[in-house]
C-alpha cells in the first residue's frame, strides 16, 4: 500500500497538457483545449469540472444530423404533400388536398400499396419461421458447425445488387433453375420468372427471404440460449419427436424474439426496393406492375422531368402511415401476448 502511494500517480494524458513554463500555448492548442472537456485555464480541481456548454458541443453533430436529416425531412414531407413542388426546383404553390384526392383515384398507387402489403403478408410468416428452424438446426455444437453458421450468413454480406445479379441469372429463361428443371423433365418450357409480373414479385420475395435468413438465424441463436435444455430432455424421455418439440418447446420459448422478428421484417417489407429493381428491371416489372411503395415514390416524386415532389410526398406520407400502423399493431399484439 505504502509503495503504491509513494510512486507518482501516472495519469495518462497529463504529459500532453503540461506546457513548458514560460511559453504561451499556441493558438491552435488553445482552441483544441477549449473544445475538449478538462480543466479550464487556471482551474483547480480539474477532475469534476465541466463547462456548461460542453455537452451541447459534443452532442451538436448528432442533434444537427437527427434534425436536418430526420425530423425536418419528415415535417417537410407533410408540408410538401400539399404543394406541387418539382424535384429539380422552380416555383411551387399550395394545392390543398389535391395530391391526396389524386392519390385515392390513382390505380397505380393502389397497385403499389397492394404489392407492398402482399409482400409483408407473405414474407413475414416465412421470415419468422424459417430462420428459427435454421437456428435450431445449427444450435447443437456438432463438428464443423461453425463453418455452416458462417456460410449461412454470407448472403447477408453481399449487397442486394450483387445477389440481385446472381438471382437474375439463376432465374433467367436459360438460367440454372430452368435448365435443371428441364433436364429433370419437370417442365417443358422455361418458367418466365423474370417476365411474368406475379413471378417477378414472388421471386423478389424469395430473394428477400434468402438474404435475410442468415441475419435472423443469428438473432434467434441468441434467443435459443434461453430455452432450458431440460425441457427438451424431459420431452424426449416422454417420446416427443423433433417436430413436436419444436412446436411445443422451442416456439413458446422464443415467442418474444419471434414477435420482434415479425415487426422488423414487416417494416423491412414495406421498404423493399432493390429486389424489385434488380429482378423486374428499372421499370419495376412489366408496365410497372411490380412496383412497391418506395419504388412508386421514386417514380412519381423524383423523376427529373415528369416528377412531382408534392405528389411523391403525399405517397410518402401514406407509406409512413402504413409503417406506423404496422408498428402499433405489432406493439399491441406483443402486449396482448405478454398479458
Amino acid at each position: 500500500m505504502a509503495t503504491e502511494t509513494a510512486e507518482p500517480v501516472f495519469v495518462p494524458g497529463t504529459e500532453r497538457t503540461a506546457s513548458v513554463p514560460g511559453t504561451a500555448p499556441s493558438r491552435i492548442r488553445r482552441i483544441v483545449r477549449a473544445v475538449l472537456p478538462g480543466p479550464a485555464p487556471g482551474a483547480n480541481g480539474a477532475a469534476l469540472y465541466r463547462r456548461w456548454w460542453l455537452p451541447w458541443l459534443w452532442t451538436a453533430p448528432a442533434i444537427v444530423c437527427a434534425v436536418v436529416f430526420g425530423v425536418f425531412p419528415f415535417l417537410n414531407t407533410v408540408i410538401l404533400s400539399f404543394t406541387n413542388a418539382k424535384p429539380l426546383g422552380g416555383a411551387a404553390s399550395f394545392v390543398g388536398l389535391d395530391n391526396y384526392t389524386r392519390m385515392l383515384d390513382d390505380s397505380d398507387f393502389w397497385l403499389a400499396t397492394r404489392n407492398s402489403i402482399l409482400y409483408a403478408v407473405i414474407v413475414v410468416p416465412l421470415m419468422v419461421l424459417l430462420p428459427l428452424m435454421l437456428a435450431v438446426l445449427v444450435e447443437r455444437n456438432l463438428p464443423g458447425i461453425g463453418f455452416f453458421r458462417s456460410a449461412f450468413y454470407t448472403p447477408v454480406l453481399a449487397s442486394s445488387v450483387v445477389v440481385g445479379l446472381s438471382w437474375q441469372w439463376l432465374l433467367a429463361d436459360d438460367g440454372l433453375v430452368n435448365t435443371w428443371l428441364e433436364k429433370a423433365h419437370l417442365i417443358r418450357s422455361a418458367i418466365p420468372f423474370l417476365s411474368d409480373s406475379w413471378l417477378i414479385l414472388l421471386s423478389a420475395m424469395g430473394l428477400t427471404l434468402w438474404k435475410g435468413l442468415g441475419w435472423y438465424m443469428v438473432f434467434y441463436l441468441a434467443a435459443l440460449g434461453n430455452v432450458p435444455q431440460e425441457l427438451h430432455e424431459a420431452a424426449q424421455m416422454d417420446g416427443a419427436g423433433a417436430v413436436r418439440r419444436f412446436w411445443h418447446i422451442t416456439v413458446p420459448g422464443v415467442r418474444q424474439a419471434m414477435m420482434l422478428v415479425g415487426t422488423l421484417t414487416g417494416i423491412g417489407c414495406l421498404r423493399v426496393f432493390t429486389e424489385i429493381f434488380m429482378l423486374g428491371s428499372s421499370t419495376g416489372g412489366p408496365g410497372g406492375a411490380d412496383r412497391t411503395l418506395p419504388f412508386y415514390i421514386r417514380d412519381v416524386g423524383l423523376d427529373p422531368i415528369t416528377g412531382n415532389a408534392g405528389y411523391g410526398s403525399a405517397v410518402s406520407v401514406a407509406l409512413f402511415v402504413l409503417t406506423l400502423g404496422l408498428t402499433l399493431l405489432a406493439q399491441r399484439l406483443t402486449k396482448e401476448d405478454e398479458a
Partner: protein
Amino acid sequence: MTTAVDKPRRLMPRWREYGRPRELVVRYLLLLFVLGITVGPLLWQFLASLKGVGEDVFGADASLLPHHPTLRAYREVFSQVPVATYIRNSLIVVVLSIVSQLVFSTTAGYMLSKPGWKGRKAVWVVLVASMMFPFESIMVSLFLSIRDLGLIDNLAGVWLPGFVGAINVLLMRGAFLAVPREIEDSAMLDGANEWQRFRYLYLPSAWGAIMVVTINTFISAWDDFLWPLIVLRSENHMTLTLGLSRLQSSSFGYDQRVVMAGSVISVIPVLVLFVITQRWFYKGVSAGAVKL
C-alpha cells in the same frame, strides 16, 4: 483408483456423443442442403467469373466448374467498365461515413450517458424521434435538401444523411453506461479530467460497440443502393453497387462473366472483414434490435 479416473474406458466411439447415427446423418444432410441454397448461388457466380470465353455460363451445356479457369473476366471488368472509379467512389463514402460516425457517435453517446446537464432528455427525445421515420418515406424531402445544398451528383450528398446515426449514438451510450461507476470514481480520485477519462477509460471499455458501429457503417455504406441511385447521375461519380446495377443482363448485353467478376470484387472486402471480425458481426445483429 486414480488410473480409472484418469483413463475412463470409452464405451462408445467419440462421434456417438453427438447423437444417434441416424439423427446425425439427417442433420448433416439438412445442413448440406441449406448450404447449397445459401452459398450455392454466390459460389456459382464466383465459378462463372473464372470461365473463359469458350465456356457456356448458361444453358444445357454449361458445367458448374470452369474447365480452363482464367482471370480474363477480372482484367476485362477493369478495362470495359470504370470499376476502379466505382471502387474509389465507394471507398470515399465508406471512409467519410466511418470517420464521422465514430467520432460523433462516441462523443454524443458519452455525453448522453452522463447525468448532470440540462437538456439531456430533450436531446434523447430528438434522437429517438429521428429514428421513427423510414428512410423511404422522407427521401423526397431529403433529395430536395441535398438539391438546395447543391450536392446532386456529388459524393458528399451521398454521405451527408449518414453523417451520424441516432442508432449508433444510442448504441455507444449503452456501452458507456455499462462502465462501472467505481472505475470512474477511482480515475477521478487520481485527478483524471473528463477528457482523460473519456479517452483512456471509456473509449477502451466500449471497444465492442465501436467495432459494431464500424462494421455496420461499412456494410451499409458499401452496400447502399437506393440513395446513391437518387443522388448520383454521372458515370464518374457512381459507387460500386450503382455501377454494377447498370450491368444488368437486359440492358447492354455485357459479357456475363465480366459482370460476375464485378460482383465478386464487390463482395470480397465485406467477406474479408467478416472473416477477420466475425464475432462483432454477430453482435451487430442483436444491436439492430435497439431500433425499436
